[in-house]
């Protein structure tokens, strides 16, 4: 699938997101963000957003936690993939620039061999795998900010 096609899918909004409330996808096709939460009294930020702050048990407000970061660690999974994900597929922890949160996420399946610890990445959203009912769905993933040699993938 091409990047343009993925963006089309994301923009079309016809597919459900793998979990509601985790993504902020601008209607104009702009850069999507992970949607988490912030506790207005403690200032603690969360991803995903819990129903209550773990510190004060007060309500947590919805808040974007970031769209860009650097890879903290990653792996490429080379056994049978769950959830209809591509084989192989990559996952990692990303240190988000905006919120300083370290979040777990999928990495771009078209760039599995390009990931290294420390490289800058940005969020993308695309049709990727299936949901709990076996239907295609949108998932967030991080992709290298600086495109590498495509032949490497």
């Amino acid at each position, binding site marked *: 699938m091409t990047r343009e096609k993925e963006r089309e899918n994301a923009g079309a909004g016809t597919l459900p997101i*793998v*979990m509601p409330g*985790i993504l902020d996808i601008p209607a104009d096709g702009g850069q999507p963000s992970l949607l988490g939460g912030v506790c207005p009294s403690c200032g603690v930020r*969360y991803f*995903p957003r819990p129903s209550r702050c773990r510190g004060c048990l007060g309500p947590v407000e919805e808040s974007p936690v970031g769209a860009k970061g650097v890879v*903290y*660690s*990653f*792996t*490429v*999974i*080379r*056994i049978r*993939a*769950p*959830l209809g*994900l591509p084989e192989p*597929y990559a*996952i*990692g*922890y990303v*240190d988000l620039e905006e919120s*300083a*949160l*370290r979040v*777990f*996420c*999928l990495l771009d399946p078209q760039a599995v061999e390009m990931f290294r*610890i420390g490289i800058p990445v940005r969020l993308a959203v695309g049709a990727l*795998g299936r*949901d*709990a009912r076996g239907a295609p769905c949108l*998932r*967030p993933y991080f992709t290298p900010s600086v495109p590498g040699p495509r032949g490497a993938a």
Partner: protein
Amino acid sequence: MGAACVAGVGMIPFGKHVERTLVDMGSVAAYLALEDAGIGPGRVGLGVFASAAAPRLLGEMTSGQNVFWEVGIHRIPILNVENACTSGSTAFVLACNAIAAGQVDVALVVGAEKLCVPGVGLLNSGETELDTRLGMVTPAGFAMRAARYIHNYGASAAQLASVAVKNRGHAVLNPYAHFRKAVTLEEVLSSPVVADPLTRMQCCPMSDGAAAVVLCSREEARRMRRAVCVKAAILCTGSYENPADLDRWETDYRGCAQGYEAAGIGPEDLDVVECHDAFTIAEILHYEALGLCGPGEGANLAVRGETRLGGRIPVNVSGGLIGRGHPPGATGLAQVHEIVTQLRGEAGGRQVRNAKAGLAHCMGGDKDGDTKSFTMIVMAR
């Protein structure tokens, strides 16, 4: 602590037991432990049964009551415990606490697991968790720890793989082990990649099996020649702080410190250790959390033979999860079985000479880059 003693242990060989049921395996282990303790079913005041996956994979609930009744135990309180890979050791901690509180004099703890069923797939931390929905599978969580550890400390793939060579070598000496064949470094490194940089032989197998332990009060143990004293039995849970470092579990360090403090001993006092080597990288990280070496030094320990049988501090002489196998409900109790056997001097070809103190360390589950459950059981002769 120190109120409880191990009076008897029993287990069945781990492996693929396609024809055996959970209750069959558990009750055989229970019988062997009672026989080893020389205690009849009528003396048991509490039964705790552990299985991590029975409700999900087998559709069986309250299996403990079935297991205990097979060995003539009924009417008393029976608990069924699930705590991922620490299910068995968590059951052990509960029984120790009941004895320490003076509620019972004798408790029987049984752990069993039947993982080798069609379509089992990979275990995860819950279908509703975001991580699971984004493709997190257990080996991948450990692979990311390995990648970060290699990045931080310059460890090599061969250093990681040497842990599997050691533990598979130990398993050859253990009649209860799932794998009885030694492997070479080349074989470990050239086995198929599961998740970079971990190859298949660096991952524990999914096993069927059962193990059981009879615990009693110190008063009861006075009449027993082969009883082993429990110096500490610790259970704690992850901190789930963000950001969490993947090259060390904060929970591992915190739990180990708590365990040593409760036992009144330190790493220098240990003769033998069983730890949660679900993957090679895990054993290396546990060396460091247990204080067997400093941060970043763990990768060299297995290579230098320090943690091999006959080395400075033998770790996973049973073969560990990688060699003995890993039926999660039984694993924590199989670790206790090994330490008790070592401290009694009954381990045959894999005996650590003059072992006087040892510990069983286990961790289970994954959440937010942390472990969900940690247990440490310190025992001494």
